[in-house]
């Protein structure tokens, strides 16, 4: 292929210099003598015929010998095959010599004709081969152009497909984010419901206390101090006031807790357009743990061992998502009852955040593929397979990495490692 292309590239645009004549055409005397030295032939004929001679073509034109026509020459015809090609004339030679010389010329012509036919047939076939080569070349150029067009089209289609896949991936990423936000919302609802519940209950107790105090009001209006005091005691107002104070204090705490949750929640609310902030990651961990605790109080014992961390510049919303995702995974790994340990520490120039569970663990064959997009061991529809992919991407965007250790049946430890500086 390459060789023939090279060859045709070399020949391309050049024409063979010899235009072929039909190899089977009839040749005249002049053509047949073209390869012979006429000077030497003339000398030989002169010697053979013992003097001047004239060699004439079929049309009577002189080809060799004396220019002057003879008055009464002897003539011998020169034939080639069926054709009369010319005449040999001599004034001096006898019949026998003349016809012998003519026969010698005929022999020569026959050899010459063989050469001509073979040579011209050869040229004709070479031409033919060349033309065939050019045709092949043209066909090859055409097919090359076709392949080129095809490959361009394929490339365009691949680009298009990549675009579609990328956009689908973005949508899935988004879906993953929304999914974790949905889970977050459930946790938040639970967290807020709790204080709201006891605040509500405290307020209704407070209503009862106020109406009791209101009942004393009418007794006090009578001005009968003794009666008032006995009613005061009877209503247990001393306890009431004490409890009222405690109850209001408790409610203020509850309201504070709600305020705190709402303020923490801001970290999640603007996941997409978050700006970098300097934060203590322990706060984020506590928040994420609270979110989880709200949903899994019944089955999971959550233990936190948070060491002092330097404040770092990061996207807190994104990291919250990472922590919550890892915690939710840990919770899901626990089938019945279990324990999740969350710890943080500084190790050299890095911050290590470890989330361990004593759940089902991950089979070794799956460990390598854990962070691959769309890899999931959960049932179809219950996970996008992007959770850990998103986590890894976020951590990598912060210049960090995630390490995982797991033993089937014993539990799993994810370590998020971020640069401390």
């Amino acid at each position, binding site marked *: 292929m390459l060789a023939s292309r090279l060859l045709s590239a070399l020949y391309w645009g050049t024409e063979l210099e010899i235009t072929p004549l039909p190899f*089977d055409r009839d040749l005249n005397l002049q053509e047949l003598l073209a390869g012979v030295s006429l000077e030497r032939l003339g000398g030989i004929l002169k010697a053979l015929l013992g003097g001047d001679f004239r060699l004439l073509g079929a049309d009577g034109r002189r080809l060799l010998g004396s220019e002057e026509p003879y008055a009464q020459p002897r003539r011998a015809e020169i034939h080639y*095959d069926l*054709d009369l090609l010319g005449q040999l004339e001599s004034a001096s030679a006898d019949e026998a010599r003349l016809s012998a010389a003519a026969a010698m010329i005929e022999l020569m012509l*026959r050899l010459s004709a063989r050469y001509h036919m*073979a040579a011209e047939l050869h040229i004709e*076939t070479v031409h033919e081969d060349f033309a065939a080569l050019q045709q092949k070349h043209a066909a090859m150029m055409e097919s090359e152009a076709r392949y080129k067009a095809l490959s361009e089209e394929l490339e365009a289609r691949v680009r298009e497909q990549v675009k579609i896949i990328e956009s689908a991936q973005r949508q899935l990423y988004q879906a993953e984010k929304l999914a974790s936000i949905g889970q977050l919302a459930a946790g938040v609802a639970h967290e807020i419901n709790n204080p709201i519940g006891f605040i509500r209950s405290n307020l209704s107790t407070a209503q009862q206390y106020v109406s009791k105090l209101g009942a004393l009001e009418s007794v006090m209006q009578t001005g009968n101090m003794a009666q008032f005091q006995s009613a005061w005691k009877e209503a247990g107002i001393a306890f009431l006031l004490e409890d009222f104070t405690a109850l209001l204090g408790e409610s203020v705490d509850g309201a504070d807790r709600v305020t705190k949750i709402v303020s923490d929640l801001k970290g999640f609310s603007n996941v997409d357009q978050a700006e970098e902030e300097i934060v203590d990651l322990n706060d984020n961990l506590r928040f994420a743990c609270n979110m989880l605790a709200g949903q899994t109080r019944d089955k999971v014992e959550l233990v936190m061992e948070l060491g002092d961390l330097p404040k770092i510049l990061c996207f807190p919303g994104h990291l919250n998502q990472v922590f919550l995702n890892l915690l939710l995974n840990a919770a899901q790994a626990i089938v019945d009852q279990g324990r999740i340990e969350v710890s943080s520490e500084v190790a050299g120039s890095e911050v290590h955040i470890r989330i361990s569970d004593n759940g089902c663990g991950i089979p070794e064959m799956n460990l390598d593929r854990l962070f691959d997009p769309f890899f999931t061991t959960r049932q179809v529809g219950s996970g996008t397979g992007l959770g850990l992919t998103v986590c890894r991407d976020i951590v990598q965007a912060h210049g960090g990495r995630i390490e995982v250790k797991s033993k089937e049946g014993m539990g799993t430890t994810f370590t998020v490692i971020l640069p401390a500086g």
Partner: protein
Amino acid sequence: MAEFDEVNRKITIKLVYYGPAQSGKTTNLMRLHDLLAPDLKGEIMTLETQNDRTLFFDLLPLGFRTPSGWLVKLKLFTVPGQVAHDATRKAVLSRADGVVFVADSQRSQSVNNAEAFQNLEENVQRVGMDFSHMPLVVQFNKRDLPEAQIFSENEIRQRWSQTPWPLVFSSALVGEGVRETLFKLLEQVYPALDRLFGLQQEHDVGQQAFISAVLGD
């Protein structure tokens, strides 16, 4: 395409013996040279052979003079049969006025025959001739071989019954059917030549006279 040379008063006709390798094309020409006695008969020119196999072509010139004094010259060519010489085969075939396809009667050669015939059809088209109108005689040669080795006449006739071309059975080696083959080809060639050159009208050569003159009856 026959040549018409007004200056030299000459009509040149080209007939080509085509066929698979070693089917007897050259032998046909040699026997014709021995058997025919036209007015004019040249020597067979053989252009290079290798182990008795034609590399270029063989040429036998035959001819006669018309009453009008014109020279009618027939050039009988053979092509090299070997597959490798296709370019030469094609060049020899070009400008042909008629073709004899010399097939080998041997049973073992039926594939070679078929391939050579297909090659003839392709090359006829490649050199710009019309295969359906080209004078063609199919000759099954080597009838002198033992019957077991060769297809019977019936088998061959049956196989070729749907085709328009005359079939001739020959044994070129002993000279049988060689003359008849040329006769059948000339029968087909004459009408076209007559149309082109007015052989009958202007040169007073009818079909009968034309064929007789070439074969030398």
